[in-house]
């Protein structure tokens, strides 16, 4: 989940309430406190609330809860004559651009930090790592409109933000960290998107890096925000969130006209949307019987507008609340506004008869008998390494089921049998007292082209015993006993080759005509592969075919 750090003093100032009240209230607006020190708090917010990516957004929600402000803030967008002109050539690479102007800002260091952290969170979250959108913040003092959204070649040079000298596009992509990270988002190797003003001053090379000429500092009074991307929906969502934060930072918002051929579009688009709910909706979903008046007030505390009419309650949703997709989201806002802490558990359950899975009952019975025979249960992961599952037990990974890009080679393969990991466990316990007798019942996996998923899962039972006298006789008598006393089955044994079992001291077994598994002493070579110094005997059978 995304995390932001906020200054507690600023939250105090923005909400007009003491720190203690703020800290106490945060969890109830869906913000989790990760840590707090004297000055700063690190807050984790849910990814559906990108408006919480600045302290302004969090303060906005808190002010509702504290009833300092209710409902949607009335804001005005003034028109400006600024234009961004979209050139045809850029559209196949990164088709869209929108933007806004914010005038008369007073940017202190902390405000700049908040804006940059918001920019980064929007890039990562709804921007899906800048794929869907990238945001640029610019001081307009050095920009001479109109702004062009066009293309340049790989040799085009400008000074990227954070560097002293001009670099070519090619160099930026190869040398800078952002270049290497986000360069792959650009599909073409010879044409690159660029935002520059009428005198060819570079604002931004999206989605990689801004130019240094339009850098924002504490002296900046007037901002241009550009947003380029591939998903207009996400871009408008993000720009609405940015606009809201800049308003709260004291700015005046002006629109920009995006000119794409003959089409002109005024941005940002901050139109509200509407929804309708009724007290019955609240009662049915939440279990709270609230009157319309309380619901309206709760919604306004959640910073939505609401009014009662003949058919129920009409709700207006500000553009920046991108999390609201359905009336259930609006109903949840009622619960938030009413106070989640006021939701008491309802214990009025009807009687219902519970039951355990039949297969589990049988597995538990088998475990009881195994334990009675002196076997210690072990539990292993369903995934294992190539070394354990194949190499050390001399098995061929020809039908192996591999997972894609695991972070560790410890869990690269889905297990098709349990015995190799039991040997691994014994090898990790060679300093413990012998005899050692262990068992496991778990799922194993094999390829199955006829199933929906291409994989067959079944339950396997494996036992491994190790002592100076661990023999075929002992392990087979354990297998015979378990089969006979848990399932009433007698298996037949016949010669068969298992790569890690000693020939002549191992056997396969079947019930009726169905092969169910194998039993035998482990080959000395395999014992050595595991660093085992004591003889080991194992059996493994397919339980699914028996229970």
């Amino acid at each position, binding site marked *: 989940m995304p995390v932001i750090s906020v200054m507690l003093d600023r939250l105090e100032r923005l909400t007009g309430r003491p720190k203690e009240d703020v800290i106490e209230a945060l969890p109830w*607006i*869906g913000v989790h406190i990760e840590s707090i020190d004297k000055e700063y708090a690190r807050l984790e917010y*849910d*990814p*559906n609330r990108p408006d919480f990516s600045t302290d302004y957004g969090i303060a906005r929600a808190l002010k509702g809860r504290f009833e300092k402000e209710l409902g949607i803030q009335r804001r005005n967008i003034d028109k400006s004559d600024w234009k961004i002109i979209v050139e045809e050539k850029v559209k196949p690479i990164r088709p869209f651009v929108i933007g806004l102007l914010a005038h008369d800002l007073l940017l202190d260091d902390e405000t700049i930090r908040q804006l940059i952290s918001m920019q980064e969170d929007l890039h990562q979250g709804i921007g899906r790592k800048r794929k869907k959108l990238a945001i640029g913040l610019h001081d307009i003092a050095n920009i001479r409109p109109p702004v062009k959204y066009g293309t340049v070649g790989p040799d085009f040079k400008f000074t990227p933000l954070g560097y002293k000298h001009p670099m070519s596009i090619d160099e930026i992509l190869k040398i800078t960290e952002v270049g290497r990270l986000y360069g792959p988002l650009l599909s073409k190797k010879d044409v690159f998107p660029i935002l520059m003003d009428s005198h060819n001053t570079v604002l931004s090379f999206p989605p990689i890096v801004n130019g240094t000429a339009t850098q924002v500092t504490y002296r900046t009074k007037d901002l241009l925000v550009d947003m380029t991307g591939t998903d207009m*929906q996400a871009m408008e969502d993000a720009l609405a969130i940015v606009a809201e934060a800049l308003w709260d930072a004291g700015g005046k918002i002006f629109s920009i006209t995006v000119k794409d051929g003959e089409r002109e579009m005024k941005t940002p688009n901050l139109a509200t949307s509407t929804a309708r709910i009724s007290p019955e909706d609240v009662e049915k*979903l*939440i*279990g709270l019987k609230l009157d319309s008046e309380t619901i309206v007030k709760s919604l306004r505390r959640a910073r939505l507008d609401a009014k009662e009419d003949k058919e129920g309650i009409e709700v207006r949703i500000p553009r920046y609340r991108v999390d609201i*997709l*359905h009336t*259930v989201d609006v*109903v*949840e806002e009622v*619960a*938030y506004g009413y106070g*989640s802490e006021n*939701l008491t*558990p309802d*214990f*009025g*359950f009807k*009687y219902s008869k*519970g*039951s*355990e*899975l039949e297969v*589990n009952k049988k597995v*538990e019975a088998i475990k009881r008998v195994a*334990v*009675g025979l002196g076997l*210690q*249960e*072990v539990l*292993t992961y*369903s*995934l294992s390494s190539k070394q354990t599952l194949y190499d050390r037990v001399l098995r061929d990974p020809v039908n192996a*089921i*591999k*997972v*894609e*890009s*695991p*972070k*560790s080679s*410890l*869990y690269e393969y*889905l297990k098709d049998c349990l015995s190799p990991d039991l040997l691994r*466990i014994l090898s*990790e316990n060679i300093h*413990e*007292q012998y005899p*050692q007798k*262990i068992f496991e019942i778990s*799922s194993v996996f094999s390829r199955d082209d006829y199933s*929906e*998923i*291409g*994989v067959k*899962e079944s339950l396997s039972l494996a036992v491994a015993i190790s002592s100076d006298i661990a023999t075929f006789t002992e392990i087979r008598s354990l297998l015979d006993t378990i089969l006979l006393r848990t399932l009433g089955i007698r298996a037949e044994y016949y010669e068969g080759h298992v790569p890690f079992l000693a020939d002549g001291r191992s056997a396969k077994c079947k019930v009726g005509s169905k092969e169910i598994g194998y039993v035998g002493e482990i080959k000395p070579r395999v014992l050595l592969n595991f660093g085992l110094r004591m003889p080991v005997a194992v059996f493994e059978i397919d339980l699914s075919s028996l229970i």
Partner: protein
Amino acid sequence: MHWLEKKVVAYLAKNNQAHIEDIAAGTGESIDQVRRAVEWLREKHLVSINVSVKRMIYLDDKGKKAAEFGLPERRIYSLAKHVTGLEDLRNLSGMSEFEFNAALGRAKKLGWIEIKGKGEVLVNSDAKELPEERLLNLLSKAPLAEEEIPKDLTEAYAGLLKRPGYIETKESKEVLVTLLKKPDISEFEQKEYTVITPELIKQGYELHLAPLDVVSPVPVLFPGRLHPVTNFINEVREILISMGFIEITGPIVQPSFWTFDALFTPQDHPAREMQDSLYLAGLKSKLLNNDLIQRISQTHENGWKTGSKGWRYKWSLDEAEKCVLRTHTTAISARYLAENPEKESRVFCIGKVFRNENLDATHLFEFTQIEAVISEKDATARKLLGYMQTFYSSLGFDQVRFRPTYFPYTEPSFEPSIYSKELNQWLEVGGSGVFRPEVTRPLGISNNVLAWGFGLERIALLRLKEDDLRKLYSNNLSWLRGKIECL
């Protein structure tokens, strides 16, 4: 007097003087036991001991061979009776060049063999047994002390010592025990028994049982037992059954469709990336229910008939067909609901779930999830809180609180926390919520569906007073064997 001492004294009373080994053989006790008893008796001045050192003679490797097959000169002599040429003799002897030459030299010197002209071998008819051979024969029956060697063989003994590999000598200590005071024999005539045997029981009267050392340690045993995580799973299962839940199960490998798409998780959601979830390489599932696929893809794209805006992107079947190791058992719950859309039900699933994580003290790539689902006409969020409160307090956590949170497939959503007295802090234990209409409607469900789930291992750690998740699956035997079952 200890019963061991009594046994030794009784033996000595008959023999007066004896070696430790003989006492051990005569009493049936081990040599160590007899040594202990003799030491105690010596301290009580009842016996004296006399240690003598003897040089014992044993056969070495060559000596053993010679005792069985004869000395090399004897072997050559026997062979020479059957061959005529020296070369044949050499080849058939099976000896090394050096050994053969030495043996031949000795046989010639003894007058057993003569070599004529171009290697013709002549054999003397009479070759008497050598003193060396007699000595080797004696030694092959039992080792001898140096002073036990017959006088006429002392020369042969000196000769064999010079021939490397035939005999070896070792010093051996002999302890001779002498009884100093004849005790009252009657005290020892009464037989003592160390083991109660079925035969003894049949005699039917009070036996004179030798007292045992009841203080010293006895062998340690380890019972067969269930793994602590299994015990905890069983406990959780019992609580849920008692709350009226029916257990369900389902495959670990799932199409992305059931793990994510059916749960309204958009296809570009970060949780679906390979960095977070484990997909199976080269495998693709076959989705069969086209109507359902249609409903769910439209719900993602435009909300379908759910009343939602949807996520507004182009849904891809390809992405939904990927095989993923389930990231939550909600995939199983969703399938159950899809198969029983109208039924009011309470079900739960306990199973493994997977994340692409590095293994450390607080993260597992594979862990156990418990999920409970309630599908009822009049289910509400407040009822969900009621179920959770009941569940966690049955598990021993009386203080439970709920904070609002977010999941793509539930609305509203809550995060339950339990208070741990040991750690003196609140711990988040999983997530919960009411399934969104975007999840239930495409599956044909009109009930409200409540769900809560949590990872079992974190609470298991609390129970087991451990702080490292890896320990649970390390299968360290001293940890598994050391657990106290009744805690």
